[in-house]
């Protein structure tokens, strides 16, 4: 008995050691960016431990309180745009994907197989080729330079992956609950709305988070479709610190941290659902 408990302690120590090493590796680049943002010089310096000699919040201040030439508080405006666009993207993507994924999980219908393959195929085509046609399309819809246009593009590009995720979430919900509701007089749609949807809530949250991230971090399409500064999103602001000839790395790092904070908070809030939402329904023991 004695021996096995020593062994258990050793295993425990080994596991903590492995996890600590992994955590250090995971945090190291992030700390490197933080130290760059806090360094007074705002320039990278060769050191093994990412701890600056002295700390200055100058980079953060200059990003946070940046004004454009006409005195508008650019950071606030662009943060507002990013928040609105990302939230709306996540709403629209989930709203479009939910009924479709429910149908794929519950009904057998002509074209469901072909449709699923087609969805997967859209993920395989490199986006490089699509940005010019998308520009022309948005132009003809008069949606260039608007938040709605960007939301539409982001949301639809997030839909295929969202459908995959939600489909397996709906598959994991036992059919019997809905059938019971329908015996009690609910329509199929009513069962979907009042039984399946609430049961899939964690998966909906995770799907929404991924759609949010697509929009929150996207740069290339935003740079292509937006040409008015008051419509810009935060990644464009970040990019403006890296210009043709020089790069303000300190400001870039400070901006990068500010951009990452909301997503980190969301990940923290949803961490339990994250594990369930990605795989629910795929294991049947």
């Amino acid at each position, binding site marked *: 008995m004695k021996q096995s408990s020593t062994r258990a302690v050793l295993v425990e120590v080994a596991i903590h050691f492995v996890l600590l090493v992994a955590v250090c590796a*995971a945090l190291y680049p992030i700390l490197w960016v933080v130290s760059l943002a806090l360094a007074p010089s705002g320039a990278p310096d060769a050191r093994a431990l990412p701890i600056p000699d002295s700390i200055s919040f100058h980079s953060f201040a200059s990003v946070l309180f940046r004004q454009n030439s006409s005195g508008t508080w650019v950071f606030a405006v662009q943060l507002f745009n990013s928040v609105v666009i990302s939230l709306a993207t996540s709403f629209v993507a989930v709203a479009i994907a939910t*009924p479709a994924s429910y149908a*794929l999980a519950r009904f057998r*219908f002509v074209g469901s197989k072909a449709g699923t393959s*087609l969805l997967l195929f859209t993920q395989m*085509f490199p986006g490089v080729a699509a940005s010019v046609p998308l520009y022309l399309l948005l132009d003809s819809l008069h949606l260039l330079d608007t938040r709605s246009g960007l939301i539409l593009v982001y949301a639809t590009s997030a839909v295929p992956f969202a459908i995959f995720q939600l489909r397996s979430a709906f598959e994991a919900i036992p059919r019997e609950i809905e059938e019971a509701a329908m015996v009690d007089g609910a329509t199929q749609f009513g069962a979907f709305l009042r039984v399946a949807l609430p049961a899939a809530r964690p998966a909906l949250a995770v799907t929404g988070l991924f759609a949010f991230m697509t929009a929150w971090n996207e740069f290339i399409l935003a740079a292509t479709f937006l040409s008015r500064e008051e419509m810009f999103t935060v990644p464009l602001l970040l990019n403006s610190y890296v210009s043709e000839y*020089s790069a303000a790395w300190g400001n870039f790092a400070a901006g990068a941290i500010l951009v990452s904070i909301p997503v980190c908070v969301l990940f923290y809030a949803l*961490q339990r659902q994250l594990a369930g939402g990605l795989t629910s329904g795929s294991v049947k*023991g």
Partner: protein
Amino acid sequence: MKRWFALAAALASLCLLPSPQASADETSVTLWHAYGEAEARGLHEAITAFEAAHPGVNVTEVAVPFGAYASKLESAIPTGNGPDVFIVAHDGIRTYVDGELVASIGPIPTAVSDDVERGYLDAFRVDNVLYGLPIALKCTALYVNEALLATPPASLEEFRALAPVLAPGVSPLAFETDSAYYAAAVLHAFGGELLDATGHYTFTGPSAERTVAVLRDLVQQDVVPQDASGALVTQLFASGRAAAAISGPWLATDLPAGLRYRVVPLPTVGGHRMRSFVSVEGALLARGARDAATSRDLIAFLASPSGALPRALIGRQTVTSNAVQADARVANDSLLSAFRAAASHSVLMPTHRKMRAAFEPANRALRKALEGEMPIRVALAEGAHRFEMITRETMPAQNPTVFLVVVGLLFLVLTIVSIRKIADAGMRARIRRSWPAYRYVLHAALAIALLVILPLLVGAATSFFAGHGRDMHFVGVANYVDILTAQGGPIFAHGSFWLVLLVTVLWTVLNLLLHVSIGVALALALHRPMLKMRGAYRVLLILPWAVPSYVTALAWKGMFHRQLGSVNAILSHLGVEPVSWFAHFSTAFAANLATNTWLGFPFMMVVTLGALASIPNDLYEAASVDGATSWQRFRFITLPLLGPALAPAVAMGAVWTFNMFNVVFLVSGGEPDGTTEILVSEAYRWAFTRSQQYGYAAAYAVLIFLLLVGGNRLLSRNTEPVGGTR
């Protein structure tokens, strides 16, 4: 539910929130630029003065992100969404004229013609039509730290003599030796050029060889630090670890306030003055400008002395106006007068459309020769060959009739097949039964068809065209033939499709192995219910996923920097010599791999955690009762159940990794010599850095697509279909 609807409604109203528009009675002009903060302030001051002099005119300035500037001009101006006036360097002028992006501004205004040198004015003239006016110059000069050097050395040879005199750890000179932009200054001194007037690559021959030999000696004799990047040059000079630096006016904005330095024109080499490239920045009139007359006035004003003065004083630009140069405040500013003097010795950047494509092969040839990897002559010849490959002649137009007939026939066959299918009674019954399901999928199908599939189809269709920018013609399948036959060279020649494909497959396989093994291992460790600090570990290990990938990629690139990076700093603590990470395929590939592993393992870890949680506990209990060891329980319960649960995630991860553009493009950027490029980054290069061969890039994209579809078919034959199991 109600709360959500309310929130959705609030969001919708926020989206439609009007943004301030110019009032109708004002004349409004939109101006685009890609300036950094200081220069943008100077420009704004000049524009304010213009607005004061022209009541009723409102100028909107837009700072367009530099990375997207050129492609944005190209898509926005022809569709009427562009600016009226835009500021660019002169070397792209032919592209703008060919792309019909610019309009004539008529004769030179007299206020400008007497004030600006002829050569700078002619930079914006093509076939005797003037499209814009010069406003500022960008060239390089010599920065000298006054505390370290009393008198600026007049020649590169004098710097050589300084090496033993200076304190240890201080380089006499710092500049980017392996950048063709800087090397060109030496090349010009020896009478050479990068590209001749007819668009022939001329970074070969005696003067080029002499240039590389000089640079190599400087590095080998420790006069100039090895593979210095722009950031390193700034760092060394700002911290006093380089007595002098060759750089442009942009260096000044990054120098600390206390540093005492002066700027002088470039030194001589071998008795000839070094002559850097000079780019002339100009304000151009966009085709289709809404108020052409006012736009012309604005351009003339920006070029005139009254528009140039605030740009010089506030933006610290080297302006083209001679009158401003004579102004006491400007003349006494050593930085401004030094760059102005330096510009007069400089060589105007050629405007040939192949110029931008010349830098990639020239940089690579330089790097190879300086690393001592091959003799100078061989490296230069290889560069010339590479240039021929990437600026390949556009293919002759083909008659699309045959192609259209084939496509038409295909459509006809497809239609007949589907009509016959629908005509089948059983099929019709099944479609009728499917009706309720269609009401659930209709909107998703429409949205995806219109905004995802249609643009991709149009993009795919461009692969049958060739040409640059908007000037495209039909070539049939010639692009594909060219790619698949490696342009007629050996199949696994450098940079050929097949070689890049091999690298891409290696990249995908290694990444997935690392993602899955690390992810599963950590998930198994985290899955122990009694583990202390489980929540904290889990949150910290997910963090890499939450950080935007372009930030991660740039951070890792910095960490792998030879002199400034922390990876080499850690290695030096362990007694390992610093590694030039991006000089060899294996190390550069490893740097990319490390970055992408860091980015990708949390996803696999989270998926595995979810799968582990859904394995019923009674299975383990039953096994324990039967006397199974913990290894047996893992081997016979966990592993078999984990496999199918991970399959969809692995398939998805394979697709993402295969097309992981950000990491490859931002970390190694294909270094060394394009060998770490993967298919998707190669496609991007054809589209954007090799004179805009969109058709060729689209053919790459279609091939990537076909490969992934084929690979998926092949793998899913024995496993579950991808994207969730049924």
